């Protein structure tokens, strides 16, 4: 009924959505959407390095994004520049350097659009293994650091005072962010990964009254976005990333109706 590549894309997308759901909630709660942007923009540099040295893209992106994240934490400690300026600096300079390096790699055939916006034709069986194993690992680690990470998201000092070691949880979470970007880059494209993280989570916030529900709805929202997005991508021959994100936007708009209802109830 469907071509193999489409089945592969669907399996890959479902794997990605299962992970972006819970991670995306933390991105929204901890106000990290610009941080996500910075990491995903720096992923381009990771991709070019992968091509230059014939490395695996996911591994290379993961390493480069992790290094950029650690570099950012150092810069935050050592300079007085506000956080958003530092994020912008790293995001755009790593994107620019990545594009310049691509210019030098003229001998390689490069699908820039696929890189920026995702390409379902590009998902291989190898990618599926990386997405599902990597994704399972990310979720497992997230479950292990859930308590300190969540407690310090609510109140850092409470978590620290009551012995939960929030700094370690934060550092591990940063690495998980780099990892999800690395495994989802082929599906969603590096310009739109943050959208995959925050839009389903924002949609979930509109219809949840507790954190567990928000995580659950965020996962469901992500899954629906991937499935609807991929089918329309096939139908209308559009890029997979934008199709998925547009689907999630539609879900978000629908969730606003629920908010409107509850506001009317209050009045």
């Amino acid at each position, binding site marked *: 009924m469907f071509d193999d590549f489409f089945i592969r894309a669907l399996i890959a997308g479902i794997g990605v959505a299962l992970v972006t759901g819970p991670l995306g909630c933390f991105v929204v709660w901890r*106000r990290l959407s610009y941080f996500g942007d910075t990491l995903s923009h720096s992923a381009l540099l990771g991709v070019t390095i992968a091509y230059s040295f014939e490395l695996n893209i996911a591994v290379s992106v993961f390493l480069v994004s992790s290094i950029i994240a650690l570099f950012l934490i150092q810069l935050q400690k050592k300079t007085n520049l506000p956080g958003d300026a530092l994020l912008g600096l790293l995001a755009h300079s790593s994107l620019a350097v990545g594009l310049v390096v691509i210019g030098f790699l003229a001998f390689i055939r490069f699908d820039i659009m696929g890189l920026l916006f995702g390409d379902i034709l590009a998902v291989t069986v190898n990618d599926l293994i990386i997405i599902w194993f990597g994704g399972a690992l990310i979720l497992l680690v997230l479950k292990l650091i859930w308590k300190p990470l969540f407690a310090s998201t609510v109140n850092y000092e409470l978590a620290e005072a009551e012995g939960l070691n929030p700094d370690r949880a934060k550092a591990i979470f940063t690495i998980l962010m780099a990892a999800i970007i690395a495994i989802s880059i082929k599906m969603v494209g590096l310009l739109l990964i943050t959208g995959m993280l925050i839009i389903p989570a924002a949609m979930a916030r509109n219809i949840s009254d507790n954190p567990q529900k928000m995580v659950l709805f965020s996962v469901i929202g992500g899954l629906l976005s991937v499935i609807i997005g991929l089918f329309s991508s096939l139908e209308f021959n559009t890029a997979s990333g934008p199709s998925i994100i547009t689907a999630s936007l539609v879900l978000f708009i629908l969730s606003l109706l629920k908010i409107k209802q509850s506001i009317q109830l209050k009045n």
Partner: protein
Amino acid sequence: MGSNNNTLVKLKNVGYHQNDKWLVKGVSLEVEKGKIVTLIGPNGSGKSTTAKIALGIYKKIEGEVEKYTNKVGYVPQKVSIDWTLPLRVNDFMVLTENLKDDAINEALSLTGVVHLKNKNLGNLSGGEFQRVLLARAISKKPELLVLDEPVQGVDFTGEIALYELIKKISDELNCGILLISHDLHTVMSATDHVVCLNGHVCCSGSPIDVAKNMEYKALFGEQASQILSVYEHRHDHVHSSEGDIKKN
């Protein structure tokens, strides 16, 4: 002060500075099992800072902190919950420790807010939120309880009731309590030791038994005078508005 087996936390001449400004300096105090230490002082005198040093939240400090327990309950001075995070009282109660439902209900009943269990934290009044904060801190049966202005925003009758509760917790759990009071002159009668701060320790001592003083009794009322005490400051120096210290 020699430490003994009952010591839970001991500050030795500690200080903390931020951007070249000392928030607090030269503070020594000790909290023991079953004892209540109250910190008082004007705004910005370093009460919360001292508490955070004792809790290990501030790490780059001068002096030494000896801590003999990991079972800590903390009520911060200010907790703001962002709208983006949907959180019910019930979710908040298990924030740092997994508790059975019974333990949650028991703690919430003690502070009189068990009916709010499924309410969203953002919809509580200031006084209700304070009671939830206190319930959360005591629910895990800590050995050391650090309460930063735990009765702020609570009406006077409620304040007396909460102080009674804190006394009861101290007796039942035999935990040590470091209490920061928002009032300069009245402290809990059950307080064993009062430390008055203003960037450093200005004076310290025990509160006066109000219940024995007829005038205070008339002022506070019969029940309140059992719970509250007056602390008479004995400073040997004054602070000018520039922050200089002059000896009397």
